[in-house]
């Protein structure tokens, strides 16, 4: 864990609080309100150019910038980790433009911006989870035209998606989608959970925290309000199934978390470690230990 040295004094008052001007924030908040009112529906919004490139999380950053207040405690993760370069860069941006306190602890954060993961720890009603989304349209790779996909959503015409999942089963024996696995929200809109692994899909279902999704380049915001049903698409005879690991976290021994594979040498030696670094270090602090901590013996 790195020390929390970034918060406080570094606030740059040359910019408006959280970079965006107040009119822009209001426009984005209106889009967020509409998104919350229609769970899973993609609300167009006038996305701005941000000082980070598109693809680096500009949608999530604009959503966060519009809702963050001086009393918020911010956590930013990428691939589950607080210490990946882009997470650091986004956290620094908000420290510089808002001066808010930051944390790596999931429990201490009021606002969590994430790319590709949902924290392992259950989120609470007083927390908001902001996702960075590259392609918000779950039907995009089945139908490239916006005019068509919009019509399909309006008519609740999701046959194409079911055909795709069916074809997966016919060809592979199971649904061959491992991340960005489509979900149906509140029984109405099919939604892209952003490219989180499907391992995280069940966490979205009836989550106590508000989930907001921002896609900057594609100019869409959508939301899952607290305690809303989020169902991964499947068939009665081929139900949604979670990926299984034969391994446990080499550091903390967890058996129920998403594991990243770490290659140890060029002779096939590797180990698995928790993708959620905060969760892992918390478990280790509580006395849990994995195989790597027993005399450097990494798993397979």
């Amino acid at each position, binding site marked *: 864990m790195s020390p929390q040295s970034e918060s406080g004094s570094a606030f740059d008052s040359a910019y408006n609080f959280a970079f965006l001007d107040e009119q822009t924030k209001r426009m984005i908040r209106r889009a967020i309100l509409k998104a919350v009112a229609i769970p899973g529906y993609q609300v167009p919004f*006038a996305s701005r150019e941000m000082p980070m490139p598109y693809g680096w999380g500009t949608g999530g950053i604009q959503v966060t910038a519009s809702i963050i207040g001086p009393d918020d405690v911010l956590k930013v993760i990428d691939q589950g980790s607080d210490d990946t370069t882009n997470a650091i860069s986004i956290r620094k941006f908000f420290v510089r433009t808002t001066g808010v306190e930051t944390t790596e602890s999931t429990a201490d954060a009021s606002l969590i911006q994430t790319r590709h*993961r949902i924290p392992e720890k259950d989120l609470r009603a007083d927390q908001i989870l902001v996702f960075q989304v590259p392609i918000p349209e779950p039907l995009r790779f089945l139908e490239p*035209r*916006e005019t068509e996909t919009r019509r399909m959503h309006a008519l609740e015409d999701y046959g194409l998606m079911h055909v795709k999942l069916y074809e997966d089963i016919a060809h592979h024996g199971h649904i061959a989608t491992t991340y960005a696995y489509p979900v149906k929200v509140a029984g109405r809109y099919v939604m892209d959970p952003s490219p989180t692994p499907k391992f995280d899909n069940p966490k979205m279902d009836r989550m106590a925290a508000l989930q907001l999704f921002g896609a900057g380049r594609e100019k869409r915001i959508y939301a899952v309000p607290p305690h809303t049903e989020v169902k991964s698409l499947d068939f009665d005879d081929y139900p949604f199934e979670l990926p299984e690991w034969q391994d446990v976290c080499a550091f903390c021994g967890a058996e129920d978390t998403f594991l990243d594979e770490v290659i140890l040498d060029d002779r096939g030696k590797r180990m698995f470690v928790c993708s959620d670094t905060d969760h892992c270090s918390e478990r280790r602090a509580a006395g849990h230990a994995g195989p790597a901590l027993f005399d450097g013996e990494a798993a397979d």
Partner: protein
Amino acid sequence: MYVAVKGGEQAIENAHALLAEDRRGDQAVPELGIDQIKQQMTLAVDRVMTEGSLYDRDLAALAIKQARGDLVEAIFLLRAYRTTLPRLAETRPVDTGAMRIRRRISATYKDLPGGQVLGPTFDYTHRLLDFALAAEGAVPDAPEAPQGDDGTMPRVSDLLANENLIETEPAGDDGAPPPDLTRDPMDFPAERALRLQALARGDEGYLLALGYSTQRGYGRTHPFAGEIRMGAVEVEVFVEEIGEAVVIGEITLTECEMINQFAGSKTEPPQFTRGYGLTFGFCERKAMAMALVDRALRCRELGEEATAPAQDEEFVLAHADNVEASGFVQHLKLPHYVDFQSELELVRKMRREIAEGRWAEGEAADVAAE
């Protein structure tokens, strides 16, 4: 023993320091000044202003310096800065007919009122490297043109319109404000004003390739460069307090009007149609390409069958912005461990199943047949 990657923060800071050092280059060579870029890299400045959607030569020059001459990166810097600026007022439509002309040519008329004015063009230079330029030296003054008759330069398209040979543009300013791409997201199908905004911000290379494709038979439009004009126009703002329009400054624009053949339809007689291009500064290649693509995208309203990429509105407009495109292409270098891990598990699972014979061909076919 290897420990999962940590310490990104120090790495970022060191990379930024190295970037700054590389940007500066050899300290023994004098540093490039913003004024030098502004004065001697004018076409780079023009392109950055055009695609950056911000007319400010100083900021564009600064962006080029900071971006080490990478114009797409400079455009991005300018766009990000633009985000922070408040919108104070809206200007009245500029009148390019009243342009103070530096260049004006027509490929459709040998001579025309106001004449052909070549201006500062590369067109008839021989593209031979001028080794004398490698040394510094004074440039002799260019000769001044005598002032023409009355200085008026009517638009070529207006000359054709007088004979009803070209489609009439719908009268502007009908009270409805034009759509604004910087305040509302793109909406398909897009009306022409919105398409033109997107093309004006669009990447020059992308529009060049698309325009070129229409000339090679992919959505052919039979274009003529009716007129290209470049020069200064006044920018006016209507001030409520004093009840009149006030000139707040002058900007340089390049405008291209393509004139295209049109055989006519059931409702329209044979006549020429228009394609339009407009840029900040002197971006003639971009203005011409834009006009070709604009005309190609009008296929729907002109009742032409859309068969080529340049006629496909969603394809053309959704991929024209180089800040968006550059970001999304390059985001592939961000970590994707989590998604890749999921795929890795899947591939292993599928290989395991094949190895165990659980998914023999016949079985898969059975499911498909159900």
